[in-house]
């Protein structure tokens, strides 16, 4: 099943491993605590029986330390990861996660600091927050920064709530009802409308032009209605193109009384090159787990700072970290704040890593990374154009979208191409996003991959194009080399099994 031109990978045995619950054996133990060193209080005195659990935590696994080590080591080998190679998920910015940053986050004085330590006892941590905010402000060209949001979507929610609060304050009584519309392009990430909705906005969709940009006419039309609170725009947008009319777009929205929110997920195309604040953007969130390389961790944690203009700053979440002479303080006294979006101060561990990223790169390095990321995407765009349909003419920024248009004539679709890429040793690109591009394949190489591997990727894609033409079955049934084949997702959703149950319980159910 392996095509002979697959050179990037070879198959090799990986260990199978059951669920830990299936591995459990009564009486196995994996921990040891120091003996209790205080006089014991009789159990019933400690806690009445009706408040105590009486199920002995049955079903929880009983295993030894070695069992745990082998369990996770084995199952880890079934994952693809950045450290194994190019991970070209468009919109996700899967760049190198520096080990130095991991080390920084584990320095005991930072890792063991309690969030409710007094200000005097936490000056180092407050300084980290303060400095990172300063740097992000410089990078985005926006004055106010809150690091509290835990991820991109959380930053979006924070950001659109700022817009709500600002407009309500500006327009007074009834503003919320009068200006409830948030404009969002049809190409936007799903979190944008979801965040807008969570913040009480009514979402109206703006069309994209055939060139892949925001349709200015449609924007003007929608703005004319008079009910808009704002626009949520991704820039470069989700097809990887810079919205070259951004200044005009901001002008139109502003003139209609709205504010412009920028989804900063694609900032890896801009850092050190151009600043949202200079474009007229009012609010933006960043994904430190994309642009600033904090690890994705198989799905998080993230950190989604919200940056805004000076006008919007009073509305940022509490508390803010401020500098008072050479002391750092927490400022809770922000009467116009939208409130807290998370307990404590946000994902501090990610802030340490992002600050280390910025310090390691320096201004030149930050720009260099952007250039390298955009160049890599451009190189892939160039390499694939002969074989794949590229729906938009304009040169892409840090990511490029292709479609399955040509291959689908033979019945081979984006999903199949993605799965076949796995056989070739690559993680697939983002597929079927953005929704406006039929059969989209959104490819973001990032700066963290060298030319040789880009060439391998291009030739893998060329190989698949050939296979799709000559031997479509091969592609349709891919992957052929993985420990497990395509899973029946429809069946899984129909009768969801979302947790393990003991055999008796499972069969009884």
């Amino acid at each position, binding site marked *: 099943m392996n095509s002979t031109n697959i050179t990037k990978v070879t198959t090799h045995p990986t260990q199978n491993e059951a669920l830990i619950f299936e591995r459990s054996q009564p009486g196995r133990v994996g921990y040891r605590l120091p003996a209790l060193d205080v006089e014991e209080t009789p159990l019933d005195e400690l806690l009445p029986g009706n*408040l105590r*659990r009486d199920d002995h935590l049955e079903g929880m696994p009983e295993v030894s330390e070695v069992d745990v080590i082998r369990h996770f080591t084995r199952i880890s080998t079934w994952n693809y990861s950045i450290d194994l190679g190019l991970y070209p998920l468009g919109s996700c910015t899967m760049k190198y996660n520096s080990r130095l940053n991991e080390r920084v986050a584990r320095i005991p004085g930072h890792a063991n600091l309690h969030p409710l330590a007094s200000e005097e006892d*936490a000056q180092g941590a407050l300084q980290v927050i303060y400095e990172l905010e300063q740097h992000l402000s410089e990078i985005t060209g926006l004055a106010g920064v809150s690091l509290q949001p835990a991820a991109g979507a959380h930053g979006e929610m924070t950001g659109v709530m700022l817009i709500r609060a600002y407009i309500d304050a500006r327009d007074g009584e009834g503003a919320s009802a009068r200006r409830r519309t948030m404009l969002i392009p049809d190409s936007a990430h799903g979190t944008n409308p979801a965040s807008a909705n969570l913040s009480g906005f009514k979402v109206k969709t703006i069309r994209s032009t055939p060139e892949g940009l925001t349709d200015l006419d449609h924007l003007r039309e929608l703005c004319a209605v008079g009910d808009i609170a704002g626009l949520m725009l991704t820039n470069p947008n989700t097809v990887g193109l*810079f919205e070259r009319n951004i200044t005009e777009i901001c002008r139109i929205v502003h003139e209609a009384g709205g504010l412009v929110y920028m989804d900063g997920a694609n900032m890896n195309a801009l850092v050190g090159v151009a600043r949202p604040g200079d474009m007229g953007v009012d609010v933006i969130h960043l994904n430190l787990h994309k642009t600033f390389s904090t*690890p994705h961790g198989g799905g998080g944690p993230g950190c989604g700072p919200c940056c805004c203009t000076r006008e919007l700053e009073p509305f940022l979440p509490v508390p803010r970290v401020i500098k008072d002479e050479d002391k750092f303080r927490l400022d809770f006294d922000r009467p116009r704040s939208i409130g807290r979006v998370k307990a404590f101060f946000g994902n501090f*561990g990610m802030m340490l890593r992002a600050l280390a990223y910025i310090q390691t790169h320096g201004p030149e390095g930050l720009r260099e990374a952007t*250039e390298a990321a955009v*160049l890599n995407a451009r190189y892939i765009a160039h390499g694939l154009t002969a074989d794949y349909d590229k729906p938009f003419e304009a040169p892409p920024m840090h990511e490029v979208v292709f479609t399955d248009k040509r291959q689908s004539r033979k019945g081979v679709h984006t999903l199949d191409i993605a799965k076949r890429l796995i056989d070739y040793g690559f993680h697939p690109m983002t597929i079927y996003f953005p929704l406006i591009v039929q059969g989209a394949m959104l490819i973001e190489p990032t700066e963290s991959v060298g030319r040789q591997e880009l060439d391998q990727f291009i030739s893998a894609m060329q190989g698949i194009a050939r296979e799709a033409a000559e031997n479509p079955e091969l592609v349709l049934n891919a992957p052929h080399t993985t420990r497990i084949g395509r899973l029946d997702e429809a069946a899984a959703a129909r009768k969801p099994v979302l*947790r393990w149950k003991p055999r008796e319980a499972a069969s009884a159910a």
Partner: protein
Amino acid sequence: MRYIPNSPDERAEMLQVVGLGSAEELFSSIPADLLLRAPLNTPAALSEIELLAGFEETAGRNRAARRPSFLGAGAYSHYSPTIVDHLIQRSEFFTAYTPYQPEISQGTLQVIFEFQTLVCQLTGMEVANASMYDGSTALAEAVLMAERVTRRQKVVVSESVHPEYLEVISTYVQHAGIELQRLGFDAATGQTAPAALSLLDERTAALVVQSPNFFGCIEDINALAERAHSVGALLVVCVTEAASFGLLRPPGASGADIVVAEGQSFGIPLSFGGPYLGLFATRERYARQIPGRLVGEAVDKEGRRGFVLTLATREQHIRREKATSNICTNEGLIALAATIYLETMGPTGVREVAMQCAQKAAYAARRIGGIEGFTLPFNAPRFNEFIVRAPSEANALLSRLAAERNITGGLALSRYYRDRPNDFLVCVTETNSRAEIDALAEGLAALTR
């Protein structure tokens, strides 16, 4: 830049290949007036040696990180077995994305499936998701979910919920058309005041309580569930000290409809408040209303079992503004850490941690309660936290304790409650030695003599 593979020469060649003359031309689609003309004003690039020295320096100024501490209140000092941090550093885990491609993400998917199972077992619930940002946002999402489930708009929240959690709920619901009502607590027991439950009515979507609550008092979940259910409302129970699951009756066994918790106690470093781990569990019948990701079992064509992201139609990338939540990135790696922690500790370890916490807290309460001038104002059963009333202003007392005795004695309630100047919250875990507890008691006694 050592993180960028392609050398300047290679990049020059690649530019040629794509037909460009310079790196600047890569940005030709950006209007010239928007292009930065000078390097950013961020600090000059540092070497590893310099950078580490800088972070060691800031870490050194986090003095609280080096002291015996009795701070809790939503963030707890528990021991984390060494293998937890070791295993999460396998790059197959920490440098992977959300498992969108199951054929090469079974490692992450199986972890989440195990995590969901463990959360169900601990909470006594039927379904759990792949995690939320933290306990506070999980609680806010639970409130929103209660509204979706019941289609009612009023939510009654106990005042004894963590004050920062209350703030987060307020932020989340402010534009959701949900009316929040606060429920007082009983001055003697420290529990949600039974009398105040009259606020519950047929318009109520949910009653929201925390147990052990912010004051360390264990709520009577059975009774609260009965009251909530009697008006058709859901009972949402929040747990900030997840170690308590090892000893306390699980909310699921007492009638809770949604259980959320902060999972930081399961082996996650304090890290100044994050990243932490929101646990979210509910009844099977509400599975399709759950926010966030879910992993389910599936089979391939050859019948081999695997795991996939499932019920995705709830989620924003498909349902967009109609999604059950806007959450996308969650706390994957932290959920992995908690999973490793729980599997290492096992049922015996989870129980022993809980028991040691409770025992040591009881000992501490006896010691402190016995000091002249100190009282423990609340008499409800507790787990490992309790309020102490000092004979003088707590904030000043705790500052002196830190300065003179090198102990962080707890949290002065005045941070959240202006009207409780002398009260402070003490938390004791299995990591506090008897010697530390004795030193705390002696310090408090000496400083108030």
